[in-house]
């Protein structure tokens, strides 16, 4: 393989992994925000 092939493969794997990690974090963060909003809106058992 051409040297640039190795360089670009290393960059592609590294940056795509980091971007994927950020995307999953963002999705999880959104889910948590929704769950927290639902919990806070719902009256607690001992409040009734």
């Amino acid at each position: 393989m051409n040297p640039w092939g190795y360089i670009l493969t290393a960059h592609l794997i590294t940056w795509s992994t980091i971007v994927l990690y950020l995307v999953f974090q963002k999705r999880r963060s959104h889910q948590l925000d929704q769950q927290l909003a639902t919990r806070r809106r719902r009256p607690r058992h001992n409040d009734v």
Partner: protein
Amino acid sequence: MSRILGWLSLSTILLGLLLALLYAPPDAVQGQVQRIMYLHVPTIWVAFMAFFVVFVASILYLWKKTLKWDLVARSSAEIGVMFTFLGIVGGSIWGKPTWGVWWTWDARLTTTTILLFIYIGYLMLRSYMSDDNRKGKYAAVVGIVGFLDIPIVHQSVVWWRTLHQPPTIMRMGEPTIAPSMLLTLLVNLLAFTLLYSYLLSKKFSLENRKEILARLRAED
């Protein structure tokens, strides 16, 4: 704050990429392929830094018994595992054109792989234990003991005869690297440090919200 950190790390990463791919000269021995160093060294740097944060946060958690330190440790461990994995993969891609093999059981590669498995074990321990209090304590002990592998990883190229090159910057005396290459490496180290800080702030906020949600569920 997190948004500023995000933009700051993105711009430094772009500058680092420009320097690594266009500005830095090719190596006299290895040629163009040595440019992988500007990715490989910062990746491993972040992994070490992340595990150092786990080490310090684990000590603080055992000492102060504050949940905040446990959240910092668990957030940093996950980032450290990802960067150790990326460091091994990047090193393997660099190894093929320079050593002729993708992998060899060299002391540096082996101790780094052990480091990866120690912290995968740390994350597994956290996810399989149900008692939150014991989970935090046991994980903190693994986080402290696991860190002992890092000086071994760093010194492995000095203590044993290895294929991996010896230290070029963190060594006694002057760094054995051209100034333009050193500048490129330092910019990339800064970019990855900022990226780590951004990822840690995001992950910490996520873990914090998870804790709040768990507490709300427990109160119901």
